[in-house]
């Protein structure tokens, strides 16, 4: 439990504005973040807070406009793709939308084998696919079917299995349970937390849902309009949120209670 896997150091990201002034839109401003090995880090933010940009920067799919992205203390931002092989194997992602995160025309076998082929992981493909399906609690027969034949929760399991394929050390989950039915969400959360333990994963869990982050994460960073306004251990932040925005977030979460006429 020491050292950092991923680090953002003073990272900013701007995009050219869609209009045609030469103005730029800042998605992230001077963000520093340390993803500690073995720790589960929650990043909470609402729409427009820069969550997705952050995920892409952590995956080195985009370059920061300023600042540096480090992987195990080595800079990865600005590096050529061929220098990123180890990084690509080590950091994987699960996306929000179970519909768009799997290619609908591919068999599950191919979806799961693709990362292995791309990264040159030398294994028995069929065997590996079977064990990946097993670790997300899907039957081996699933490999022969196409993505559209599965429900949202099952698709999300497949997406998780795909991410686990190259045996990563860091798993980034970008709103991975937000699009799921309530009755299925708990299954996926349970799966994620057992996988984190079993595979010794470092988890970066990006979400707008404070409750889920509290359940899953050791530490939390609150993202507001492209800046990190508060970080700390989850228990501390929930017990005594310092920033007004964090307090607002916590207060906004609907609680189950008989509201009308009972208060």
């Amino acid at each position: 439990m020491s050292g950092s896997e991923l680090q953002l150091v003073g990272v900013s990201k701007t995009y050219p504005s869609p209009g045609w002034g030469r103005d730029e839109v800042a998605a992230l401003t001077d963000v520093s973040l340390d993803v500690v090995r073995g720790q589960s880090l929650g990043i909470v933010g609402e729409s427009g807070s820069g969550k997705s940009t952050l995920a892409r920067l952590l995956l080195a799919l985009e370059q920061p406009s300023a600042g540096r992205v480090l992987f195990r203390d080595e800079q990865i931002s600005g590096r050529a793709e061929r220098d990123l092989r180890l990084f690509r194997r080590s950091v994987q992602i699960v996306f929000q939308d179970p519909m768009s995160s799997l290619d609908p025309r591919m068999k599950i076998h191919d979806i799961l084998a693709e990362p292995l082929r791309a990264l040159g992981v030398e294994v028995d493909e069929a065997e590996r696919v079977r064990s990946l399906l097993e670790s997300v609690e899907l039957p081996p027969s699933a490999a022969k079917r196409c993505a559209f034949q599965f429900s949202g929760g099952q698709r999300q399991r497949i997406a998780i299995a795909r991410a686990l394929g190259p045996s990563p050390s860091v798993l980034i989950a970008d709103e991975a349970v937000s699009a799921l039915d309530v009755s299925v969400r708990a299954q996926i959360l349970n799966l994620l937390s057992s996988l984190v333990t079993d595979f010794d994963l470092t988890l970066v869990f990006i979400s707008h849902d404070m409750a889920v982050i509290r359940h899953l994460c050791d530490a939390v960073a609150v993202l507001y309009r492209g800046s990190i306004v508060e970080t700390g251990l989850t228990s501390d932040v929930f017990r005594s949120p310092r920033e007004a925005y964090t307090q607002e977030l916590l207060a906004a979460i609907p609680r189950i209670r008989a509201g009308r006429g009972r208060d």
Partner: protein
Amino acid sequence: MTLLAGKVDEAQRRSAFRRWRANPSALLGTVIVGVIALTALVSLVWTPYGPLAIDTNHTLSAMSASHWLGTDEYGRDTLSRLMASCKITMYVGGLSVLFATAIGLPLGIWSAWNKGWVSQLILRAADVLYGFPALLAASLFAAAFGASTNTVVLAIGIAYIPVFVRVTRSAALVILNAEYVLAALAYGRRPFAIVRKHVLPGIGSIIVAQMSLLFSIAVLAESGLDYLGLGTAPPNSSWGTMLQSAQNYLSSDALLCLWPSLAIVLCVLGFSLLSEGVSELRDERGGR
């Protein structure tokens, strides 16, 4: 959305062939296109009289047992000429669409992937080319090189490049924005592999539908060009040249115009139905 999920599942369970058979546009289109393609193939080895065989004793004869569809002003058998024209039509349509696809498809994908100045340039160039409809391009070719079947192919092919660039680009953008492409980048797939594994299979049916549609438009364009004398030159027969020569006998022998007209209409209808069928089948599959 949730409502459609059930329908999609159901459509999936049926085999591709059965869905094809159940779609009237696709079925009818396939049959018509099949018949025309088959006729073109047969005409390579056999036509009742040969498209160029002149018989001065039987000029402008009506429909009869020996000449099913009659003969033209030189006594050439109309059916034979119709059949031989299928060949020209398939040649022009097929080659021009392939040409436009071969150039438009890669440029479209490139401009979808790359948002830099090169793709801006591609799109601008497509816009400029868009100002040259097939007929204008063919006129320029004819003025420069003299008219022939091949100038028609080139003219139609060039005129359709911009259409292909745009269609490919918008279809590819949809795929490239999907999260599975991001996931593929995250596990180290390079752009070329992503195009091969995700983009091309993903836009395949759109491209096929578009090719079929453009084929039908190419048939229209070709008949017009041949009619004007900007394409296939007599004595070779094409539906357009047949129309042109038949026009002289409109008041006496209107049927002479009817056959090539019908052939053109049928052929265009066949390809446009096929195109519609392919897109409908795609939508049935959930449009993904």
